[in-house]
């Protein structure tokens, strides 16, 4: 006697993206805080010291926000024109910014007036940064030059005129006070040593370089330009390591997250992509409302700040474990483990007489009813599960099983208004799902056949039937449109693919020869 085989509930592949560790990590942020700035947000920089304020450069102002404030804690407005690249020094005391008017200004974060003004560039300065010894400033400008300045006496130390186009990004080494790297619209990245006259290394990115990023170890350099993000190995003399092409518009900004294990790239295509830095595969993707110009992550990924062309600054703060724990504690306390193992781990002694008890198989409620051939009750039980868990697979599985048994009609018939409306509710909710459509269509036809005589007796049922009709009509229209699109695509593909000729076109001719040959008069084999 075989045991009852439970109804097979098909397992459908989960649609959408897979839930991975990364998705969980990067989804664990609160709803974004949006702040309107005065213009497109061109740069965001976090202060390296706690409480990690961040400077937001937008149009002719630099706002400094506290980690949780929605109002700027400090504003620098002494710019004549658009400000660029407001950056903190490594002690968080000073802030430097370039400007369209070619003057570089140095601020004290607590003051308002510029401490120093560095004049010497002839065009807008888009790149400013402090060197690691804190006493010098690197600037890069649209006049194709990059310069080093001494802070105390505001004097120019050296000028490099190697780039042949605008310099739009640059980064200084955090480990060596003399090294810095610039990227330019002439497609090249250049590594300079302040002790040398010329650049020490040149790499060709292939696109106008928009952003640069050094790994904390400073062995690897990441550059973004055009649609490409490229990783270079500096220790191997600037050898290209990977080229990533995951955006479909220019990549504008780069950042490192998760202690340097993830790389983030922001682009004009409104996406921020998160890469795994060991495999360089995209592990997560953020969507924003407008083209992104700047991106920065707070230390420990406490917040993600994104500035966009529509002058919106979006700040996402990380959810903390205390808050999620609160939800956990609200759940019902389950019986302890001890309850379940009670008596299970008893080891019988050798001379004990064992009374074997048949293991009671557990069946779901609908299976228990199916076993007893109670088809209507089985359908009711499965509908109940759908209402409770919102999982239509089980209900569809039971309907399929009833159809296989040839008793679906019996199960659907003989329902009162409430039961029927529940059933119709299910049908309306799932009839357009392609996974379930074939069987639910059969069931819907049966329902209409059975209950067509009672149409007009109940307002509720009539309303549901009308809704069903509307859904079906819109679905049919949609499918028709899709078929039209498919037809168009087919013609396009057919014209784009060149037809390949089949070789051996003379095969058919040679085959026709041996029609009447008997097996005995077969020609001798050719030695081939």
């Amino acid at each position, binding site marked *: *006697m075989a045991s009852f085989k439970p*109804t097979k509930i*098909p397992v459908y592949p989960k649609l959408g993206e*897979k839930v991975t560790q990364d998705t969980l990590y990067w989804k664990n942020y609160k709803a974004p805080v949006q702040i309107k700035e005065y213009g497109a947000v061109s740069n965001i920089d976090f202060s390296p010291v706690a409480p990690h304020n961040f400077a937001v450069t937008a149009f002719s102002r630099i706002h400094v926000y506290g980690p949780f404030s929605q109002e700027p804690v400090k504003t620098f407005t002494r710019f004549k024109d658009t400000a660029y690249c407001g950056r903190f020094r490594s002690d968080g005391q000073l802030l430097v910014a370039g400007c369209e008017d070619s003057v570089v200004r140095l601020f004290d974060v607590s003051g308002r007036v510029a401490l120093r003004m560095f004049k010497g560039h002839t065009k807008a300065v888009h790149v400013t940064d402090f060197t690691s010894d804190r006493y010098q400033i690197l600037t890069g400008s649209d006049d194709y030059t990059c310069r080093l300045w001494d802070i105390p006496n505001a004097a120019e130390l050296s000028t490099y005129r190697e780039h042949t186009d605008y310099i739009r990004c640059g980064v200084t080494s955090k480990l060596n006070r003399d090294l810095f790297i610039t990227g330019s619209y002439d497609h090249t990245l250049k590594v300079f040593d302040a002790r040398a006259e010329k650049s020490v290394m040149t790499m060709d990115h292939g696109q106008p370089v928009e952003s640069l990023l050094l790994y904390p170890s400073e062995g690897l350099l990441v550059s973004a330009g055009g649609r490409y993000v490229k990783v270079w190995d500096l220790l191997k003399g600037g050898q290209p390591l990977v080229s990533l092409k995951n955006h479909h518009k220019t990549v504008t900004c780069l950042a490192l997250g998760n202690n340097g294990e993830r790389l983030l790239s922001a682009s004009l295509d409104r996406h921020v992509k998160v890469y795994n830095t060991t495999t360089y595969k995209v592990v997560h993707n953020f969507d924003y409302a407008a083209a992104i110009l700047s991106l920065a992550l707070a230390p420990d990924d406490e917040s993600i700040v994104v500035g966009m062309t529509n002058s919106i600054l979006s700040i996402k703060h990380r959810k903390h474990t205390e808050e999620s724990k609160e939800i956990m504690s609200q759940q019902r306390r389950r019986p302890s483990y001890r309850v379940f193992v009670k008596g299970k781990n008893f080891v019988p002694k050798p001379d004990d007489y064992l009374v074997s008890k048949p293991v009671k198989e557990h069946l779901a409620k609908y299976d228990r009813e199916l076993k007893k051939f109670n088809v209507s009750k089985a359908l009711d039980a499965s509908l109940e599960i759908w209402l409770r868990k919102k999982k239509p697979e089980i209900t569809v599985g039971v309907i399929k099983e009833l159809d296989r048994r040839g008793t679906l009609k019996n199960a659907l018939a003989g329902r009162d208004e409430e039961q029927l409306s529940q059933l119709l509710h299910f049908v309306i909710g799932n009839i357009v799902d392609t996974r379930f459509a074939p069987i639910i269509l059969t069931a819907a036809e049966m329902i209409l056949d059975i209950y067509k005589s009672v149409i007009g007796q109940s307002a509720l049922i009539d309303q549901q039937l009308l809704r069903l009709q509307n859904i079906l009509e819109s679905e049919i229209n949609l499918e028709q449109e899709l078929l039209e699109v498919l037809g168009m695509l087919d013609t396009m593909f057919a014209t784009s693919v060149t037809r390949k000729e089949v070789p*051996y076109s003379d095969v058919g001719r040679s085959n026709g020869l041996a029609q009447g040959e008997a*097996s*005995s008069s077969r020609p001798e084999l050719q030695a081939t």
Partner: protein
Amino acid sequence: MVEQAEIRVVHQGGSNITFREPAISSDSRFLLCASGHNVKVFSTVTEECVQELRGHTDLVTGVLLRPSNHLQAYSCSADGTVRLWDFTDGILIKTYVIGYPICSIYASASHDGVIFIESVSLYSDKYGNRNSLLAVHLPQTAGQLVETSDLSAVLSDVSANPATVAFGRAGEYVASTNGVQLQIFFFKKQKFSLKENSCSGRRNTFTCVACHPTDDCIATGHEDGKIRLWRNFDQKREYTYRTLHWHHSTVRALCFTPEGSNLLSGGVESVLVQWRYQQESQQDFLPRLGAAITHIAVSPDGALFCTSHSDNKIVLIQSCVKVSSIIQGLVKGEAVQTDLMVDPRSKALVLNGKPGHLQFYSLQRDRLLFNLDVVQQEFIHQEGLDQFQVVMATLDGAGAWLATVEERKQETVEAELNLKLWAFDEPSQSFVLNTTVSTPHEVRITAVTFDPAARGQTSLLVSCGRDGLFKAWRLAPPAHPDDGGPSWTCDFVSGYHGLTPQRCCFSADGSLLAVGFQEVVTVWSPASWELLLTLSQPPGIIRDLCFGRLSCSKFLLGTTSSDQLCCWNLLTCSLEWSTSMEVSLLLADPLSDNMAAFCHQDGNTDLFVFKPSEPRPLFSQKAVCSGRVSRAVFAPREVALESCEESSQWLNRSQLYFLTICIPVFSPPSQLVVDDSVAMTPFQLLLGKRRPHHQAAVEDPAVRPRLTDVSLLLQLLQSPAHVLPAAAALCSVFMEALLGVATETSDPEEEEEEDSDQEMETRATRPERGLLETDSADPVLSRAQVRELRRVRKLDHSWFSSLLDS
């Protein structure tokens, strides 16, 4: 001396063991059941076949314990004999020659020396041939072969179904039903008490009948699922009946327990129902027995029930609650839809069996090894329900992967299709479901095949569908590392001018894939999925495709529906040769470069074995079997043979098994179709066991039987004394036999010819030898027999003289 290596077809088992009701021995240790031409004795404890009673030359149609001796059993057969056996030792005691084909056999304890048989053509009246129940008085004569002439008709016009006759209370009366008529015949009064067309209506035809052992009560089963209990039937008018209704369709079997306390019934629902006698409202059920119940038998002590099922299975049940053992034969579905395959691991034959299952059948042991549940759904026993059927199955070269296609036809909607891929699991030694693809093709699948390359590392499956596409499925690692093991995904889809692909075939090294699109054969490269070339031989649709193996791997063979066998050379891309023959089946031996073709002609099937590169066939045999060969397979041998004869060399490394469909002579009205799998082998290996020559004796029963047969002689010498007839009666026969043997052994040049007593056996076509064989009508001894005889003569015969003295 070189042993002769004649090739012949041997019936290799798989016969129906549930054709007739089995009998349980009185100590409940053995179960006897008719199985083809033999009677098999199974142990009820170990499920092993302990004895096979061979002797009948036609289908055995009934087995019965002898009421007066519980160690003996009668068996009747369509060859017109009733044989009495000692079933514990497997000895034939007596053969009663009736002379008419017998349908069934009955006996009752009160009629000593009388058996009742049901036979066809004794009294044929104006209604044509009708079965009649005859009483046969068994003569108490000595001798093994007894001619019985004392026949007397009891009932005429009996239904051919043996379940419709039952003997009541100590043999006082016999109840028989036919159609809507119930007849009860009392032996003492010699009259019918009830001859009533009592059940009017369309669907209450009688199907079976059972009589209470101690009470005057007859239970009848009906087509509408009702059971009626008849009482008071010795009065003409005042009979009464009571109706019990649980079954929703035909009651197939009814049986009272020996004490009469319970009534057992069964039918299509495959539920054994136990009704308490006199308290019929109380029932016990034993559900989900697997298939429709066809017979129910109870052991004489009432402790053991046994139900026969339509899937060739006998279930032994202890006291109606526990299934104690299952004896399972080769499951015969309506048709073998999957191809025959040989599992490379277990060397078992794989084919579809029970609905939704795949059976693994051991050819060596003639036993079902296990059933693989492919569909994994509760089977609903109801007639007219569309069930899932396994229509396609294929194994890869190493037996590591199994692909199955299941299908459920529906009238309104298109068929539901599932493609399942199973991985062999080493720890559990069975197949575990890996991937399920629902609706792999829009319409039905016509062929599936695995890539044979790289043994044990198959990663490519090709399926062809009626939707004009063929798809390649590849074993792919999971997209995410935490998704578990690898699974199969679709790799490539293609068609050819919208034609329907019918066949696909990989070359032996897996470098080429041939797909037959109606009239066109396309050859693809699985590495790049490029169409390499197309071949065609119009008119005629490609039916079979096969690549040559080993030295002939440059050839591609195909058969077309216009009766052409074509061989293309793939190097020159041209037709090498073609011949006009109606090939119903073409297959290649995986271990050699031979191909076998079965040709259907005039109701018979011819077999040709050939090499694609040689002009002459290696072997050919006309009329291998009657009827169409539906499936065949080459099974590799465990040990390769060293045969030097040219005509049998092709069988050195593998055996050819094929499956035919034939209808036995004695088919019950429900058109039972028996398909037998047979093996063609050099006979000296497989036919170590010899069959006695009964045919001569049967044909001429007047002649005193000569015990020329050595095996009978051996049986006689080995059988215990208490079951033998009187020694005085035996002596002269025995002596004569020995003398005869001695004279015949002096002629060692005589070629042996084994007249097959099985319908499936046919001789090999060696024309010159064939003539010789047909001349020798009298059975003569083979060398093996002579050798055995010499061994017999070396035995100590001193007991014999003492026997003579007594």
